[in-house]
């Protein structure tokens, strides 16, 4: 691969890096911890001291949005990586096994991807008193493997008839050996592209969960900002705009970052 295409690929990571750095700086510059209340400044407009303005009960939006973004990106990256790590070998194994197992995994992916997973997440989260980020991550991971599995399955269907795989089988390598040494390494580039769209979907789902009231206990979530914005739509529209732009930009940056893995 030429240095130029490598540079172009690395460029896809830029928006996410910019958001990470900006959020880090935003969180570090803040006078107090994210979420500190200052009722005298409730719903104040953006100013030099508070560049994004204030929300409910005078919470400074800049550190709040910055920490919420860092939290959302961390959650999205971890869950997407778990989905990747679980889903890829499963799909590859299914395609190598062929027959009934392959068909079953294929259909399971279809169904899990189409299922109203948001509603499932609400129901599972009701089992804990106050959901933490770990709980939310586990619930998302329940369905995050499916797109990776489906991609790995499709790609392995092509690979399984490749001469080098046949050669490995003919030389007496075990199925697991073929899978680990020959198939999975060849899948990674194709399947890794899905990391971006899964990450973006998780950023949005986390915001949506917090928006309907199932956010993390500390209230630091982009969905929480949106919820405040909707409540004060007429009084302080800047809160709504800040929340919406933050969700949109973060999810878009995740999508673009996924393309860095593209071949």
């Amino acid at each position: 691969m030429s240095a130029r295409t490598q540079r172009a690929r690395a460029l896809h990571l830029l928006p996410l890096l910019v958001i990470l750095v900006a959020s880090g700086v935003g969180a570090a510059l803040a006078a107090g911890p994210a979420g500190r209340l200052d009722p005298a400044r409730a719903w104040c407009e953006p100013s030099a001291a508070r560049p994004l303005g204030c929300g409910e009960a005078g919470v400074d939006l800049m550190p709040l949005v910055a920490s919420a973004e860092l939290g959302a990106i961390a959650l999205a990256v971890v869950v997407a990586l778990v989905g990747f790590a679980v889903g890829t070998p499963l799909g590859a194994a299914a395609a190598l096994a062929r027959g009934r197992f392959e068909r079953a995994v294929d259909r399971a992916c279809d169904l899990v991807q189409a299922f109203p997973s948001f509603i499932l997440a609400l129901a599972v989260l009701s089992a804990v008193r106050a959901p933490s980020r770990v709980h939310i991550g586990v619930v998302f991971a329940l369905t995050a493997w499916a797109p990776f599995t489906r991609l790995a399955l499709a790609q392995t269907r092509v690979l399984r008839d490749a001469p080098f795989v046949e050669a490995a089988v003919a030389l007496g390598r075990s199925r697991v050996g073929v899978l680990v040494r020959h198939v999975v390494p060849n899948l990674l580039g194709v399947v890794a592209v899905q990391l971006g769209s899964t990450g973006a979907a998780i950023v949005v789902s986390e915001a949506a969960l917090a928006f309907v009231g199932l956010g993390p206990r500390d209230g630091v979530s982009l969905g929480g900002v949106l919820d405040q914005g909707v409540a004060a739509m007429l009084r302080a529209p800047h809160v709504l705009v800040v929340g919406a732009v933050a969700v949109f930009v973060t999810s878009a940056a995740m999508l673009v970052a996924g393309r860095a893995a593209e071949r």
Partner: protein
Amino acid sequence: MKPLRLLIGRAVEALLVVVALASLVFFALRLLPGDPARLVLGDEASAADLARVRATLHLDEPLLVQYVRFLRGLATLDLGDSFRRPGTSAMARVGDALGPTAELASLAVGIGALLGIAAAVAASGPWLSPRGRTWVERALVGVAAAPLVAFAPVLTWGLAARARLVPLPGDPDAGFAGLLFASALLALPLAAHVGRIARASLAEVSRAPFLTVASAKGAAPLRVWLVHALPAVVGPIVTTVATQLGALLGGAVVLERMFERWGLGTLILEAYSTRDLPVLEGAVVAAGLLFVGAQALGTAAHLAIDPRARSGS
């Protein structure tokens, strides 16, 4: 016989997924650390009250007995009484809430499919300049990537609160216009997905001989694309709608919460905050059944419209 077998096979598979996911919810509520009875009553509850709740929810029985009871309840659609409204069955409350959500979601599917197909046909036919087509395609990609939870409140603020072009859907006097606005918001991401898939599929058939024949026989471009090309790409469109349905239901929960509109989403959130376990389980089952029904309907529609699907090729 083949189409019927395919249809039944699909429905059975989808039902199995619903049972598996409902079981997941069942076990999550019972096996995760934390006592469900305490979740329901809070920390200050007396031992006698806790025991009473455990008895009502059958939490004092062995897990296996509870699970068998749960499966029997699933099969007969009777998951016991709502815990917060004794005397009302959980499924009745869910059924009550299902109507408004189904109204919102089905209208959104209709609007989304129409908008998406219109955009795809517009971008495929001879009406737009190449530049215009590229813009339609770009708009589809952009809208498909826009999260509902971010753009729905902003559009509501702009169109309903500021410009007052549309009524707020949560307003009791909003009536059908409010419902239409809420469905249109919900329909936008679906329209973009349908538009992208339909555009790609139409591009594939655009050079097919049967379209050339239709044009040569004097059919107007609109007729060529709508009557001849569109039926050939119904399969991918129906599949897209079916796979987006889960996201649509999730979006409906967000919108119902935002507009304080009664429906399945509001019921689930209410059941969540009051830990009404039977209602929660019932809501997941109902969402699942809705999903099975839609999948079956999608397969049936595809089989009815596209003869290639019927022949099993």
